[in-house]
């Protein structure tokens, strides 16, 4: 290619790129500081609102039933649910809608999308409406409301909540001489159990998912911060602080488990994300840590009668350190945001619907129908919930775990804008440790460095 045409190509690429990439000029947007409750009264009825969600099948059916009941119960508000397939798709679609204006009145997002959603400046904070409406969150589990409170404002309405638990095979435990009713409670007990299981012929006793959330949970369980500025809750976080004694301890622990053949890793993303469960099923694993949200599926598979060698046990996630756990797990799952681009009457209608969804009775229905946790104390203590738990004790484990331990800024969990990138940095470090034998200390230091770089990059991008 001649110099002339090379230059032509470059000019053309730049011209095309400039045409295509330039974003729509960012409108000045700020989250609402008031809630137009009165607008609903004045509006012509019914006020129609749309909610984007990513609940599918059984979970989606329960949500639809609750919504239908709401629509039938009154004439002021009519809610239409639109399924956006998955949380990634929902966020992508919401972001695209920011420039085109095609936004819902309520959007369900993943818990980790919280900071990004706040940064869009399109939220009517649930806390603001609660205050205007004299609605109290005191019946909600403190761990849940604290997860959704950033710099003193509760932005989202909590909704579908889960937590990490230990899944184990009671029959393999019994065969190895372990007490199946006394699963390991901390990481050293877990390793000891794995050694016994391995001696008894379980190939790699633990299926260890390279899920970066484990590091976050273990940090919270030690009552330590994951990111600075109070986990990003006092002010926007500017760096990660997980390269701590606890972080290094869990990284060395994981590396040791893998190196000694006590654990086999599988990715938490892509097609291998269920390999830890499949390993339990095939008998090559006897333990794994995963979200309680998987419990319904796992129970259904193992309950199909094809697996006589497996009796599923569920226990709280074993934490670092011995003795009593000093911290606690933070919530995983999803939450609901009201959107301030909607007309005032729609914002008020959205608040009515959120109050309805999170009412004690509906939270009970939701928890029993989906396997998510009841996030209100009165739902948890209701007769239906207690009866359900008596019959399905495995479903109670994640709830008990969530109310255990102190409610602190550490157990509230971190709130980070570029969560995907931060988790990617942790995942990469774990993989370099498992696959290339990188020293755990060097691995976690690299993770912290890359994660901090991602945070700084994000902060400068949004001009914070």
């Amino acid at each position, binding site marked *: 290619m001649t110099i002339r045409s090379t230059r032509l190509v470059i000019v053309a690429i730049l011209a095309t790129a400039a045409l295509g990439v330039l974003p*729509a000029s960012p409108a000045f947007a700020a989250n609402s500081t008031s809630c137009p409750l009165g607008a609903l009264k004045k509006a012509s009825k019914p006020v129609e609102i749309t909610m984007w969600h990513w609940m599918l099948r059984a979970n989606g059916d329960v949500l639809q039933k609750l919504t239908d009941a709401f629509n039938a119960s009154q004439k002021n508000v009519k809610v239409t649910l639109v399924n956006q397939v998955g949380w990634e798709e929902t966020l992508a679609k919401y972001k695209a809608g920011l420039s085109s204006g095609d936004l819902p009145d309520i959007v369900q997002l993943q818990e980790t999308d919280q900071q990004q959603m706040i940064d869009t400046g399109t939220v009517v904070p649930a806390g603001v409406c609660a205050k205007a409406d004299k609605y109290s969150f005191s019946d909600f589990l403190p761990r849940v409301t604290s997860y959704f409170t950033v710099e003193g404002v509760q932005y989202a309405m909590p909704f579908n909540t889960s937590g990490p638990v230990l899944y184990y095979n009671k029959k393999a435990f019994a065969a190895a001489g372990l007490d199946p009713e006394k699963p390991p409670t901390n990481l050293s007990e877990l390793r000891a159990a794995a050694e016994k299981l391995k001696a008894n012929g379980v190939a790699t006793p633990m299926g260890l998912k390279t899920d970066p959330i484990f590091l976050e949970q273990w940090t919270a369980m030690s009552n330590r911060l994951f990111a600075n500025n109070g986990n990003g809750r006092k002010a926007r976080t500017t760096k990660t602080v997980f390269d701590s004694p606890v972080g290094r301890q869990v990284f060395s622990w994981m590396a040791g488990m893998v190196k000694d053949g006590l654990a086999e890793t599988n990715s938490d993303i892509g097609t291998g994300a269920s390999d830890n469960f499949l390993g339990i099923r095939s008998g090559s694993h006897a333990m794994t840590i995963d979200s309680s949200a998987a419990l319904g599926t796992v129970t*259904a598979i193992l309950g199909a009668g094809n697996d006589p060698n497996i009796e599923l046990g569920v226990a709280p996630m074993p934490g670092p350190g011995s003795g009593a756990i000093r911290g606690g797990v933070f919530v995983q799952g999803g939450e609901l945001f009201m959107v301030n681009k909607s007309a005032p009457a729609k914002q008020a209608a959205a608040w009515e619907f959120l109050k309805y969804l999170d009412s004690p009775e509906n939270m009970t229905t939701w928890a029993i129908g989906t396997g998510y946790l009841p996030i209100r104390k009165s739902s948890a203590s209701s007769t239906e919930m207690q009866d359900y738990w008596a019959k399905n004790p495995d479903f109670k484990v994640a709830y008990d775990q969530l109310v255990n331990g102190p409610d602190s800024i550490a157990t509230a969990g971190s709130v980070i804008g570029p969560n995907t990138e931060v988790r990617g940095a942790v995942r990469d470090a774990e993989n370099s440790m498992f696959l290339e034998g990188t020293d755990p200390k060097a691995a976690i230091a690299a993770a912290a460095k890359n994660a901090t770089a991602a945070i700084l990059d994000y902060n400068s991008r949004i001009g914070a």
Partner: protein
Amino acid sequence: MTVDTVDARALHRRRVWGKVGSYTLLTVLAVIVLFPIYITVVNSLLPSREILSQPPKLFPSNPQFNAYSDAWNVGHMGTYLKNSFIVTFLITVGQVVTAILAGYAFAFLEFPFKRLLFVVFLATLMVPFEVTIVTNVSTISDLGWYNTYAGLAVPFLATGFGAFLMRQSFLTLPAELRDAAALDGYGHWRFLWRVAVPLARPAVAALTVFAFLAAWNQYLWPLLITKDDKLRTVQIGLKQLQQSSIDQLNIVFAGAVIAVIPLVILLLFFQKQLVRGLTAGAVKG
């Protein structure tokens, strides 16, 4: 017995064994490649419970077809399939027509800034669609095409790749052909459709298949630009099915089969043309 015949026999034997060897290898490879498709069909015919059995069932002893009707009705695959057909048809026809016209212009016409324009066309190949997705969504919304077939199809009616492919194909036609056609009184329009396009048929077929595949497999764009189930396409339906509960695995497999059938049919019809189109450039000096 002469030396020659011994040699000939040995040669013949070697040829036969060589053939046996290569056919065995090809059969093994074909089985490996086809197995996932086979097992998908098998699993779509099994009751959900049996899909999970160990060892896995390799043959449906008692095939059940209700998964297909479930995927079609409950999973809305019928509606999604219809939408996919409409959108894919529009996109494929649009892309092929615009590519032929643009490719012809770049190959046979002289006009100002031809080189620069062509480079701009090429440059669009280097901008991934994801980069422009947000601006595209707002453009389509501003045009009032949010949640319409137009919104689904229009952004893909013309591609730089198509124009490039057709231009390259037209350039291989000898210039004398154009001159001869001109002597016969053919204008550009008649030359294009009567001579150039028939001669460039492998490239047209290849482009058709590429456009069809790309349009059929679209996921993110249809999801962003549609409001509800009425206009969504088959890949979205498949993803929805995929995330369904574990006791309905057979429906997921049935949905996958439904989504892939049109592609298989297309490939069966176009296979020859496609291979010719792909290798056409390889033998030209």
